[in-house]
Structures are given as structure tokens and as C-alpha cells.
């Protein structure tokens, strides 16, 4: 089966299990969100999928190939691109350098310049600040920069870790609508992990609810939003 297929995944930090046997799929072109409170294991899941941390068991396949055991930089070359938690930009570098970082290892003929132009069209605020150090940006602009750099890596599967973290509601809306547009225009497969259940489920096709490293519920985004029990116990609104 193509797309992302995760089976019985386990991640542990020493004796502490962070993910205890999780299975799910993301079909090609789908936007799936994983919802869970702090400490549910969302970041650990993405870090395992992008090769940043080793797994304790289980498997993960992307388009029928196993992805465990590879370095993050090799998975990026295979199209698996992870935007880490907390506005993942390099503060000491300029906005343009942060963007270029995603392209310097690619061949000139790979069309990096064209993608960069598209990114600047999608996030015009970055274009106005190309020469500025990234640490002078607002939180929302940093998140845009992190996503922009990921796009320059030419992702097929985009792993987004809490892009709403610490942002004002209006900015969250701006970023989530950009994610929704991107995903259709570029045909991306997206795995979005979030605590902000409402915003995430609003743009997702399906949702998976995590609690203490396990899947407690999953289903169509619209159905999860309508479920009164889930609302009360996990979605927090």
C-alpha cells in the first residue's frame, strides 16, 4: 500500500515508553492530523518518522519502502520532510539563508529557484524580510519560514509539529489556510500533529487522537468534531 503505513510503532526514552504500539495510515494526498495533549507522544512520533530518534519496535513504510534506520538528511532526499516543533528556523541566519538551506544540496536543474519564488508568493512577508536575521521575525513569520524551507526541500510527505504553538488565533488561521492550500496545489501528503484540535480538524481529512502514547480514537475529521464524548475528554472545547 502506498502512502505512509505505520505498524505497532514503539518509541522509548530509556525505560520510559513514549509511544506504545501505534498503527495508522496516511494515504497519498491525504491530510491527517494527530491530536493529543502535551506529552501524548506526538513529537516523538514525528521524530521517529524523520529519523531523528531510534525506534524501539514496529515498522513504518513510505510508498512500500521501510524508512527506519536512515538519517534525516537521507529521508529528506526521499521526500520526507519534518518541520520540527517550535518554529524550526536558525535564528543566527537571515531569512534568505534559512530558505536557501533547503536547496543548497539540490542540483541547480532541480528548479529550486522556481520553488523559492512560489514560497515567497505564498508568504509575501518573507519576501519583504529576506535580508533580516530570522530572530527578528514574529512567531508567525518564523513558522512561515520553517514551512517555506521545508517546501524548498521538495517534500512528498510533510510532517508538521504543532505549527500553531504560541501563535495568536488570526495567525494560526493564516498558517493553517496556507497549509490547506499547499497540500492541494502541490499534491502533498501531510501528517499534522496538534494540540489545537479545532484548527487542525478544520483542515484535515481524518483525525487520530493520541493519549499517553496510544491511539484512543480515529475517524473522519468531521465525525470527530461532532462526537460529544471525544469533545469533552480529548478535544478540549
Amino acid at each position, binding site marked *: 500500500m502506498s502512502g505512509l503505513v505505520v505498524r505497532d510503532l514503539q518509541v522509548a526514552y530509556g525505560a520510559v515508553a513514549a509511544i506504545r504500539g501505534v498503527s495508522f495510515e496516511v494515504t497519498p494526498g491525504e491530510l491527517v492530523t494527530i491530536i493529543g495533549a502535551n506529552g501524548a507522544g506526538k513529537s516523538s512520533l514525528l521524530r521517529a518518522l524523520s529519523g531523528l530518534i531510534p525506534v524501539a519496535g514496529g515498522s513504518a513504510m513510505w510508498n512500500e519502502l521501510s524508512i527506519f534506520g536512515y538519517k534525516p538528511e537521507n529521508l529528506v*532526499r526521499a521526500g520526507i520532510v519534518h518541520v*520540527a516543533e517550535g518554529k*524550526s528556523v536558525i535564528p543566527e541566519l537571515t531569512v534568505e*539563508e534559512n530558505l536557501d*538551506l533547503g536547496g543548497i*544540496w539540490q542540483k541547480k536543474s532541480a528548479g529550486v529557484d522556481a520553488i523559492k519564488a512560489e514560497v515567497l508568493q505564498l508568504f509575501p512577508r518573507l519576501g519583504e524580510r529576506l535580508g533580516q536575521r530570522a530572530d527578528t521575525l514574529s512567531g508567525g513569520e518564523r513558522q512561515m519560514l520553517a514551512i517555506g524551507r521545508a517546501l524548498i526541500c521538495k517534500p512528498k510527505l510533510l510532517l508538521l509539529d504543532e505549527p500553531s504553538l504560541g501563535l495568536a488565533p488570526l495567525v494560526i488561521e493564516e498558517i493553517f489556510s496556507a497549509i490547506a492550500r499547499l497540500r492541494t496545489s502541490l499534491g502533498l501528503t501531510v501528517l499534522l500533529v496538534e494540540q489545537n484540535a479545532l484548527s487542525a480538524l478544520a483542515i484535515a481529512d481524518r483525525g487520530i487522537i493520541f493519549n499517553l502514547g496510544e491511539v484512543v480514537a480515529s475517524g473522519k475529521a468531521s465525525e470527530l468534531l461532532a462526537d460529544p464524548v471525544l469533545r469533552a475528554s480529548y478535544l478540549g472545547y
Partner: protein
Amino acid sequence: MLHIWGIEMKTILETLLIGVSSGSIYSLMALALVLVWRSTRVVNFAQAGQAIISTYIGYESMKHLHSYWYSVLVAIVAGAILGAAVEAFVMRPLAKRVRGSAAADIAPVIATLGILGLIRGVAGLIWGNTFVQYTSPLSGKGYTFGSTTIQFSPQNAAIVIGAALVMAAFAIIFNFTKLGLALRASSFQPEISRLAGIRVDRIRVIGWACAGAAGAVAGALVTPTAYLSPNSLDLLLVSGFVAAVIGGLDSLVGAGIGGVVLGIGFAFILQYIGASVTFLAAFIILIFVLLVKPAGIMGKSGGRSA
């Protein structure tokens, strides 16, 4: 003669020039230490040993090439290869082994001390613990103006120019090339760099190679003003380290300035106080900088600069 407060102007200028020359060498050594610190967060005590080996290789190659300048190029290449090898075959496997353990921070530094001892021993076996002369075609005698000869020689001038060229080359590589961007990004945020597709392990090897090359230039340029033995560059490592700390340990520009400031300071202490005090002064400066401005003259408090 022109005198100010009883001090001869000529002596002051001469001392300044000598300070800039020895300071240039400290800057190169500091640059080597900073490049490694930035790429792997290790203080590389083995740098003195690496520079010794590359200088001996330059010395040997001169027997065949019959050109000091070509032998300097050979030394630079040897220094780069040696630096890359130390990172790829010793430091990286070691870092992987100790990651997450209590020894993770200290083991690599101790390893560099071990490598320094090993290199010195091997150099002693190959070349003997005697002094040899690695000579430059440039005169070591001071320039003469009319009837006065100053202490600053053509070889000193070559040292200053050589160091300036190396600094300029690194400034261009770091600020205007893709490799430089990868080097900076990997040193600031290795994890984000990896997620952006940068092969951080390879970039670190290149960082160590650049450091090895800078140390090789220092060794090959300074040795004709003295002699070569398995530990003839040890004091240079101390000066380079103090210079790097003055410059903030993280800043290439700081390493350059730190070296020259230290060189001038040493030259004046040597001229007006005495040789016995210079190294005492080095450690006093080191402790003073660490206590008063631990981020160095180029460092912003708490932050890091490129």
C-alpha cells in the same frame, strides 16, 4: 631620535610590528580552534600535534620540491587531511559511543589530549626529539632603513600577509558560498540543518579539515623563525587558545582580533617587562576574560555571533 615620555618611538613601532606578526600566528591557531569548536563543540588540544605533523610533512616535502612555498602548500593539504581524519575516524565514532552518557562532554576533549600525546610520540619516533631547521627563502633578518635595522623581517611580513590571506579566504567561504552556509547552519543548529537536508557529519569533517589547514599555515609560516621539534608548537596552542577565548571561542572575526591583541600585548610585555612574565600574563588574561567577559570581546552576552 623621537622620544615620547622617554620611550623611543622606534622601539614602540618595532614592538607593535613584532606583536602583529606573532599575533597573526596566534590568530591562525585560534581560527583552527574556533572552527573545530563551532563545528563539534570540542576544544581540540590535538591541534598542536596536527600542526606539528603537517609542518614535518612540509619540511620533508621541501627536500624533494626544493621550494619552501610549494612545501607550504603540501603542509596545508596534509593538515586538512589530518584534521578530516581525526574527526571522521576518532571523534565522530567516539561521540556516537558516549552520546547520552555522563562522559559525553568530557570524553572528546580528553581524546584530543590523547591524540596530542600520541602524535608527539609518533613524531619523536620518526623525526627524533631533536631540533631541525625548516627554512624559508625569505630573510629572517630585520628590514633596514638607512642606518637602523628593525626586528621585523621579510619572514615576519610573510606571516602577516599569509595569515591575512587565510582569514580573507575563510571570510569569503563562510559568508558567500553554499559550503559556508552549510558550515554556519550546522554549527548553530545541527538538528534543523539535518532536517533541511544538510549532511551535517560531512560538513563537520570539512570544518575539521579547514581547521587543520589553518593550523598548518601557522606551523609552516612560524617555524622558519625558530626551529622544529615534536613539541615546538605547544606554546602556540596555549596562545591560540587564549586568543580564541578573548575572541569568544565562537567567532572567526574574534579569533583574528584576539590573536593580534594578544600578540601585541605579549610583544610589549616582552619589551618592557621581561620574557619571564609573558606566559604568566597569558594566563592572567585568560582568567580575566573568562571572569569579566566570558563571551569574549565579540560575543554578545548570552548570544553567539557569526
